[in-house]
């Protein structure tokens, strides 16, 4: 938690205030406020349909929030995300994201995927492609640098050997890591990861956790993480926000959230127990065993 102390004075990286998103009559997010700090992993958890992805879609400009303020502080420069266009949020404010169901440029090579992510830098260097048409040296240099950055991230996610293959030919786990690498190539200050571990096997999942914590520690960016696997969430996040039916029901350190009765109720209230995270289930079972039948009312 020492990282949190560094930035304590500068204010949070992202301040979400009274965010509300309605789709017709459906209130997908209901007056949610939270902060996310630099160099921290802020996890957003909650049952299916709680509104987690919708929070990301509001942050990255895919939805215009019905109400609320999304203030981002990029190295001292303030941005109000709810007033910006989607591409400007990624380009200027530096908010990158991945998608719940991977969205790669399937027919393009792995390397090309990473170069597309550096579109804005390369466009400027190539004189909006006009000068690039004539192969000016400044563009060649910029392209070499872009390839170097891509190579750095390929090494980082172990995909260098497959750089020239179409992205769609990669196994699922590799596609997930490639999507993260691609977002990092935009040099973001806030990274939003939507269930990055979905569909990964335990070994891949462990690698992914290391990648995410490394990105936080080495690149000093803030990370928002949506994750269903409680063991992962409890292990790597610095701060957890729990949503249920669009409302924030808990907010705090992993320890606080784990013991929050509201969280336990939300997860137990689910009809399908597939949603019950094993850790919480174990805790609840242990609590029940300890305090006996009367314990429920006391909590």
């Amino acid at each position, binding site marked *: 938690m020492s990282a949190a102390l560094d930035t304590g004075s500068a204010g949070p990286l992202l301040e979400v205030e009274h965010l509300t998103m309605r789709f017709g009559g459906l209130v997908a997010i209901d007056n949610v406020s939270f902060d996310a700090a630099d160099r921290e992993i802020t996890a957003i958890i909650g049952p299916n349909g709680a509104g987690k992805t919708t929070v990301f879609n509001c942050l990255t400009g895919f939805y215009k929030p019905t109400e609320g303020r999304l203030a981002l502080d990029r190295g001292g420069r303030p941005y109000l995300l709810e007033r910006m266009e989607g591409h400007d949020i990624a380009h200027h404010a530096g908010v990158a994201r991945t998608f719940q169901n991977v969205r790669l440029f399937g*027919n393009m090579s792995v*390397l090309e995927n990473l170069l597309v992510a550096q579109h804005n830098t390369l466009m400027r260097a190539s004189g909006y492609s006009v000068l690039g048409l004539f192969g000016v040296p400044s563009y060649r240099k910029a392209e070499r640098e872009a390839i170097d950055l891509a190579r750095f991230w390929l090494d980082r996610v172990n995909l260098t050997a497959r750089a020239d293959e179409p992205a769609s030919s990669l196994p699922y786990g590799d596609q997930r890591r490639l999507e993260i690498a691609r977002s990092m190539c935009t040099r973001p200050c806030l990274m939003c990861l939507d269930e990055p571990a979905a569909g990964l096997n335990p070994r891949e999942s462990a690698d992914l956790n290391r990648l995410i914590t490394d990105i936080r520690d080495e690149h000093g960016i803030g990370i928002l993480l949506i994750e269903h696997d409680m063991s992962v969430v409890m292990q790597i996040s610095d701060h957890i926000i729990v949503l249920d039916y669009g409302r924030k029901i808990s907010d705090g350190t992993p320890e606080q959230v784990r013991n929050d009765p509201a969280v336990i109720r939300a997860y137990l209230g689910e009809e399908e127990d597939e949603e019950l995270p094993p850790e919480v289930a174990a805790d609840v079972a242990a609590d029940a065993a300890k305090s006996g039948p009367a314990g429920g009312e006391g909590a």
Partner: protein
Amino acid sequence: MAVLAAEPGAAARGVDWRHVLKESALAAFIALMLTITMVGLRTLDSGGSLIIETRFPEVAVAVLLVFLGRFGLVLTREGMPLPVLIGGVVVAAAGLFLPLPATVLRVMTVAGGIILALRAGWVLWRHSAVTADREARDLAMDRVGASVQRVTRYVAPLAIAFAVALPFIPGLNDRSSIDIATLVLMYVMLGWGLNIIVGLAGLLDLGYVAFYAVGAYSYALLATTFGWSFWLCLPLAGVFAASAGLILGFPVLRLRGDYFAIVTLGFGEIIRVILLNWYDFTNGPDGISSIPRPSFFGLATFTRRPGEGDTAFHDLFGLDYSTVHRVIFLYYLILALALIVNFFSLRVRKLPIGRSWEALREDDIACQALGINRRNIKLAAFTFSAMFGGIAGSFFATRQGFISPESFTFIESAVILAIVVLGGLGSQAGVVLAALLLIGMPEVLRELEQYRMLAFGGAMVLIMLWRPRGLLAHRDPTVTLHGGGRGAKAGEAVAAAGAPAQ
């Protein structure tokens, strides 16, 4: 934005026939309600008194068409594009051969069938391109595509050399062969131009002929009204067409998929109708005749007896006068123009703008998440595509010497699109092959002329069955880390270098 929430793989579900029929019936009912008054009843002025004439067969056909169209679209969406493709071709053929009460119905039926077939073909093509289903057959075909493409790298310079030498090859240098070659090259150029927006950016443009028309009329009007020379008007025609592309681009920016295609189709028709009806300006259906022929770069003319102060081409080079000189000159001109488009396309794929076009084709939502301004790059794709279409149009005008709205019908757009789709996803060589097949063959085998559209449809069905991604669809990376494509790069550079050399 529902796209974000939508799950892929809708095709895997079974088809809910009741729902499909209900939706089609609803559309047909709405069509009935609209057409019964607007089409079904017509007031006629007969000898001072108004009588009402009924046209119920027309209504019936229109309603049936709407029903079939909706049925086809829903089926396509439900993951059965192939039957729809075949059905569309059958409807178009039926429109050609069945005795229908009015010509307009025939046109509607044929156009409806073709649109439906194109739409289904597009889905087949895109679907297999995006999901990259790893069927063994497709893989094998892809290997064929890859090797053909590799061979193309070495064949391309040879093909260019052949094209350059064509007017001097005995047996092929007669007037009609060169005319056919010029025609094929025109379609190659149009195909390459359209390939930018359809093949690279993945936006289905059904109204490309509009830009062709704008280019042709720009030249024709500038040349006949102000007497400006072809060499001044050629770039101007490009500029006008590009502006038309920009103007169309703005309203359609937010649309995608079907909506985009339909609006471009509408735009194509609007341009044609304006050309037809703005009599004072465009001379309406009479067209514009005696459009000046191009000079030899402003140095000499291709006439037997040049006017005062002009030099004749044959005098300039000390040749005997021959009408073939101009034909050959036009041939070289279109060859050079087409190669410039090719050079542009090959280069631009390696530039950020070209890469973002391809990314847009693959996943436009991811594009936005990476900070790419989709509006601007779509506009750029539209503008460049339109510009090349316009330049081709002004060539068309100067070659024909006469243009009228007849030359810019939807069929023309369909032919150009067929060339691009058949050729394969963004494939430059594929366009040449498809243009040779679709334009060259019917010209050589004149008797086939009346069956041309039928042959088009048949070819489309076959290709979609056999190779939904197009004949030569194989994509090589534009940049490699491990240098796998070094040979490829050298080959393309040679092919590209051919352009300025002309």
